[in-house]
């Protein structure tokens, strides 16, 4: 039975339903409860943007606040995972990865391999990504490509409330460390989400719009912007096929290659900075494996090679918009060789 | 290196042990944590106090814990002040082994240099090792360890004043100091070690983590002084058969598990730890008499630290002696100083005589003392 809820509520529901089902699921993070040790309301925040609100009253000690010590509590979540729990730890902003990255990329990611296949580290690290909030340079980045680069990690970035719930449940059930990226601008987006529990497998992209002229590969919030561009382009009879990657590790290459085989033209849209991002990754894979199908050079639409600016006008210039995507589509469409 | 030529008398030695307060009683009881910073502050307070009494030099131990370093930093700050609030401070140039030997060697050198008083900041352990080396030089024994039996918990400024007064000879030695009792331990006919407050035998096989906290393992206790308000093993005697510091005898108790023997006492044997201890027998011990241990195997603790493992082939005996270290009786010194107006200075204009009728002592007058008796 589906009903309309927000992206944020979908994640919260996934957490709550899995916690009800499996007592080894625990939640921790800064202000995930909120109000610890203070005299006022318990569960005062439920996470800085409310995603974990309501969990503490239901699950008590399984929902934990932490001091501001990312190395310690992200590491603790990882250690608890190797010791048989299924922790969901919040790295509040992906921008904070610098203070705990070792525990993620040198420890969690490598245990299974280094220990000859005997370790299992079923930890989920939930983290906020993305610009548009006017939160400026240190709270607005899209750093998922750095995690994608690391063997041993899985990286998930849902674009819709439906995907958010299914992918979160899958993440919790997955036995490998998962980095679950929540775009902060999507929290209030509404969508149809079934009440019952369901999962979405990793490594399966979603073709959200069919089209025969140009393939638009994207992820996260850019899926919505790409759809807006596609809608505008359709008025000029350019039909875009929009593919939402959903997970960058593992990544669904087949769907992308199949689409490019059909259209021969590719535009990759990634809100991250241009060097070594998902756009360059997808472009290289397609250039290597579908070179013969291409009728035009691949175009990439990304943020510029700058930190995220504060001033709203500048931030709006920073973030790829529909017009920029349309221009790129026009360019690859019009390419004559 | 501090040498005879650079010491200006009156001189005071300062031994500050950075290592005290690290043992397992922090874990098994609620023993205090004594920060190095506070030890350094204590030394500085004492130096200021000593200077005000006319002490000219202070000879200090160097250490790796930051105490000496903190003093050096303060000395830099004092350079520009006149008069300098401190005596001339010299540091002993001895190798630092980070062991009890550091304190022992330091005291030996200070005696060679002719210091009049040695101020010791340390626990029972520090004082115990110094006791065998300090001869008749009076010690100001300041506690910085695990809530001690021998040294005093005393504000360092006052301790510095008392040390200074004794060093400059402002108060007579016989009134200012006390000679303490001690216990000598002989093992297989050789002098093995000594204790200032208590020697305790336990059933433990090993010295282990040193402290004693399991009451059921204790077999025998010898004490020099057992006050009812003391903390530590001596409290077992202090609460049942107390003996004062001045009394020329000690106490020996044969111990047993609680509930057995002639009585059971609830005693504060460690900070925050009140244990039930059974007593099988109590007897006085007199100076010079060697008492053989009743158990034939176990470990002997000296002033609360397990030190000597022994077995059936070992012969151990404990004797009370009266020739222990000399300590400054800070309370008496300060009282004497007040009575003699040692801290009063002549007023610029004659001040009205302060009535003494409200004072309990009723001896001498506070006001109108000539200036030359101030130090």
């Amino acid at each position, binding site marked *: 039975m589906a009903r309309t809820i927000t992206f944020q509520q979908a994640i919260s529901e996934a957490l709550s339903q899995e916690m009800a089902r499996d007592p*080894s699921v*625990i939640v921790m993070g800064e202000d995930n409860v909120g109000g610890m040790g203070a005299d006022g309301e318990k569960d005062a925040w439920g996470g800085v943007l409310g995603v974990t609100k309501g969990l503490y009253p239901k699950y008590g000690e*399984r929902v934990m606040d*932490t*001091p501001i*010590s990312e190395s*310690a509590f*992200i*590491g*603790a979540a*990882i*250690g*608890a*995972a*190797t*010791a*048989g*729990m299924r922790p969901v730890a919040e790295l509040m902003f992906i921008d904070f990865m610098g*203070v705990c990255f*070792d*525990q993620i990329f*040198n*420890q969690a990611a490598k*245990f*299974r*391999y*280094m*220990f*000859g*296949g*005997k*370790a*299992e580290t079923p930890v989920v690290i939930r983290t906020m990504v993305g610009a548009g909030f006017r939160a400026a340079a240190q709270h607005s980045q899209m750093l998922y490509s750095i995690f994608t680069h690391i063997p*041993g990690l899985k990286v998930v970035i849902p674009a819709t409330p439906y995907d958010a719930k299914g992918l979160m449940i899958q993440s919790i059930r997955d*036995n*490998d460390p998962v980095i679950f990226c929540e775009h902060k601008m999507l929290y209030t987006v509404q969508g149809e989400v079934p009440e019952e529990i369901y999962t979405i497998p990793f*490594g399966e992209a979603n073709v959200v719009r069919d089209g025969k002229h140009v393939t638009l590969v994207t992820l996260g919030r850019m899926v919505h912007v790409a759809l807006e561009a596609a809608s505008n382009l359709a008025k000029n009879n350019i039909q875009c096929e929009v593919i939402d990657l959903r997970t960058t590790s*593992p990544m669904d290459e087949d769907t992308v290659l199949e689409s490019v085989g059909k259209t021969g033209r590719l535009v990759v849209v990634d809100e991250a900075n241009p060097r070594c991002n998902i756009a360059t990754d997808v472009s290289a894979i397609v250039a290597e494996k579908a070179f013969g199908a291409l009728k035009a050079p691949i175009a990439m639409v990304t943020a510029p090679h700058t930190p995220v600016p504060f001033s709203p006008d500048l931030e709006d210039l920073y973030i790829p918009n529909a017009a920029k995507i349309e221009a790129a589509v026009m360019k690859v469409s019009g390419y004559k060789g | 290196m501090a040498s005879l030529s650079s010491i200006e008398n009156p001189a005071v030695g300062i031994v500050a042990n*950075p*290592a005290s307060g*690290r*043992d*397992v009683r*922090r*874990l098994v009881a609620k023993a205090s944590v004594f920060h*190095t910073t506070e030890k350094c502050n204590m030394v500085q307070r004492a130096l200021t106090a000593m200077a005000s009494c006319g002490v000219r030099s202070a000879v200090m131990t160097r250490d*790796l*814990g*930051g105490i000496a370093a903190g003093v050096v930093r303060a000395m830099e700050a004092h350079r520009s002040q006149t008069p300098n609030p401190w005596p001339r401070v010299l540091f002993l140039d001895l190798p630092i082994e980070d062991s009890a030997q550091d304190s022992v060697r330091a005291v030996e050198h200070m005696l060679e240099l002719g210091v009049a008083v040695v101020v010791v900041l340390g626990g029972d352990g520090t004082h115990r090792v110094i006791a065998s080396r300090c001869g008749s030089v009076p010690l100001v024994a300041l506690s910085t360890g695990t809530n001690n039996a021998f040294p005093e918990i005393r504000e360092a400024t006052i301790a510095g004043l008392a040390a200074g007064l004794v060093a400059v000879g402002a108060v007579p030695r016989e009134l200012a100091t006390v000679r303490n009792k001690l216990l000598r331990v002989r093992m297989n006919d050789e002098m093995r070690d000594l204790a200032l407050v208590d020697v305790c035998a336990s*059933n*433990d*096989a*090993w010295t*282990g*983590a040193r402290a004693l906290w*399991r009451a*059921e*393992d204790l077999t025998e206790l010898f004490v020099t002084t057992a006050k009812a308000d003391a903390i530590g093993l001596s409290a077992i005697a202090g609460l049942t058969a107390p003996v004062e510091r001045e009394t020329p005898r000690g106490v020996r108790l044969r111990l047993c598990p609680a509930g057995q023997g002639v009585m059971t006492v609830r005693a504060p044997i460690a900070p925050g730890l009140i244990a039930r201890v059974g007593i099988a027998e109590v007897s006085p011990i007199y100076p010079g008499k060697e008492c053989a241990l009743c158990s034939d195997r176990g470990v002997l603790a000296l002033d609360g630290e397990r030190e000597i*493992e022994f*077995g059936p082939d070992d012969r151990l005996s404990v004797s009370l002696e009266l020739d222990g270290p000399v300590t400054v009786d800070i309370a008496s010194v300060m009282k004497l100083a007040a009575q003699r107006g040692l801290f009063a200075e002549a007023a610029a204009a004659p001040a009205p005589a302060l009535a003494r009728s409200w004072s309990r002592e009723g001896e001498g007058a506070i006001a109108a003392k000539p200036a030359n008796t101030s130090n």
Partner: protein
Amino acid sequence: MAATLSREDLLRAYRMMKTIREFEERVHTEFATGEIPGFVHLYAGEEASATGICLHLNDNDKIASTHRGHGHCIAKGVDVYGMMAEIYGRATGTCRGKGGSMHIADLDMGMMGANGIVGGGPPLICGAGLAAKFKKNKGVAIAFVGDGGSNQGTTLESLNLATVWNLPCIFVMENNGYAESTASKWSVACKDIVERAHGFGMPGVMVDGHDFFAVYEAAGEAITRARQGGGPTLIECKLNRYFGHFEGDAQTYRGPDEVKKLRETKDCIKSFARRVTSAGMLSQAEMDAIDKTVLANIDDAVAKAKAAPKPSAKDLLTDVYTSY
């Protein structure tokens, strides 16, 4: 009554320390032949610390170690044959040759790994302690940290977290005086690492790391306290390493004869043997017999390791994920 050490306990302790010592001495000589790939960091001299602590532990309890992890592995019960094969990079190694000396782990025995990252262990141990709390199995989690690691942010954060969450964790600071080539006298701001415990709201105890009995007793109290829900403890073991930071380290930063003097005056195994024989608990003959079997074992482990197959090409790609 004190947890007294029975003859069996003492024999076990002796065997454990001797195994560690001979294992490390042998790796030292084998490494010099050039056959062992990569880097090894040897624990010889520090045996009393690993043994005094781990003798108290069961399979529910977890430990995490440093790059100098062979001693902790052996003390926690990791198989010596598997360890030697792993050091040689063979497929029969504890980690199938994919971890090497710095990453030996055996999760079934509660050994969460030696760690190539200084300070990598403490947060993981907070996690293991947290899991033990949720599982209510009275397990404890112990992080071994060096004097170098005691300055790392992860260690300090973990001390704080362990107190805040009241975790059954013990942080054992093995202060051997050197973090690589830098003296801890210089790099640690307080004189003794144990002083930091106070700042993080937990009790701290310092023991002579060469004295098995001192380590054993202090560890016993800390572990009991943790099992009873009393929270974390910091134990500083002051000890010495005989070998360099890594094999190949000329150790010119140490005084001349420093190591020679240490081997003569600070040998935790020799002093253990002296004490247990003079207390009449064990005989020299028993210990000599143990020496023989230990050496034979290690000999055999080396021979088997050298003869063991290397991992195959397909092993390169396996076990990155449980499923992908």
